């Protein structure tokens, strides 16, 4: 990947995150937070990819970063973590995989259907794994720091 492609990839992922934050009516002053989370998430994915990680591992690591950053942003701003988390992870959603799977299905190309479906599934499972792992770590952190299991709420 050239530097220009890298720039385009990061820029579009960050601005795409901003777009989603606007569609979902995030308060304007927190949109930069969402953009930062989108940047860190996608940067993590690219770093993992550069080190030769597979799609699942890269998505898992990126999603974990997105969840943790969102939780810490929520603590810092005393706002709902979900808005930072969802906006941050949106660049990992396999829109391309979904399209190509269905395209191959319509064209009856079973080898490509299998390939794209597996790749899309790995991405979805990577996102799910990252959210579960990140949530588990944050839960432990909150119990240790706050000393109260029910204080889960911003």
């Amino acid at each position, binding site marked *: 990947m050239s530097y220009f492609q890298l720039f*385009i*990839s990061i820029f*579009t*992922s960050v*601005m*795409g995150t*901003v*777009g*989603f*934050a*606007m*569609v*979902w*009516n*995030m*308060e304007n002053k927190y949109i930069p937070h969402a953009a930062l989370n989108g940047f860190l998430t996608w940067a993590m994915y690219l770093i993992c990819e550069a080190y030769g990680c597979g799609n699942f591992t890269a998505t898992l690591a990126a999603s974990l970063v997105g969840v943790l950053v969102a939780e810490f942003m929520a603590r810092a701003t005393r*706002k*709902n973590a*979900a*808005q930072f*988390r*969802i906006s941050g*992870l*949106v*660049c990992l*959603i396999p*829109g*391309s995989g*979904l*399209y*190509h*799977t*269905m*395209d191959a*299905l*319509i064209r009856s190309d079973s080898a490509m259907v299998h390939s794209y479906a597996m790749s899309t599934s790995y991405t*979805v499972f990577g*996102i*799910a794994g990252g*959210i*579960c792992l990140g*949530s*588990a770590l944050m839960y432990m952190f909150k119990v240790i720091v706050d000393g109260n299991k*029910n204080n*889960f*709420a*911003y």
Partner: protein
Amino acid sequence: MAYDKKMLGMFVDVGREMLQSGAEIGRADTTIKLMGLAYGAARMDILAITDYLVVTMSLPDGVEYTITRRIEGGSTDFSRIEALNELSRSFCNKPFSEQELRERLDGIRNNHIGNLKKYAGTMMVGFMFSAFFGGSLLDAIVCCALAFPACFLGGNLSRLCSSNIFYNFLCALFSGIMACIAAMIIPAVHLDKLMIGLIMIFIPGRALTNSIKDIFLGDTLSGMMRMTEALFCGAAIAFGFIIPVYVTGI
């Protein structure tokens, strides 16, 4: 202290409003519980799933009230969730009357997302994700232009559709038709990049991520319901986009 049954209805309405705005089940559950306990309830028992809320408030004098609410429709609105959070926090700090709670809740309900922000955001999503998935500048510009009618359709089709899956299918179908027409008029455009950019507008990312979090936090039933719907919606979207490609043979 005299307790008012209407208060329970208000707490449940706050929870319902949260779920309709895209909050996780656990958040709505916790909000109702904390508001009830702040009001003076001895115990709050809540069953919340994506479509239904059942809440029983047990008062210190032994009286119990149960209220149910059906949850229908709604769209993601983070500002509204935040406003509802603020409302519940201020109530928990210093409980106020049912009248005041109702007025403040109505104020939040009537505060809708601005169309300009929604359309601008949708067009930005179309532009950026078309380029993100490898599209050219021309693809991104055309995708951005198509995002506007796609957003308009999305806003108006929801009340005509019986289910979320059918709604997503129709949105995708119309967007797919528009993309195919654009590709026929402008041959330099890459149809797949256009479609992928438009798919990202409709893809149920919020439902998918919330469902995973719901399952992880123990709201397995709600999470599974939400995930199943999200997966069916995803398939419906992809199917809706592919039909015009199949028919036109582009």
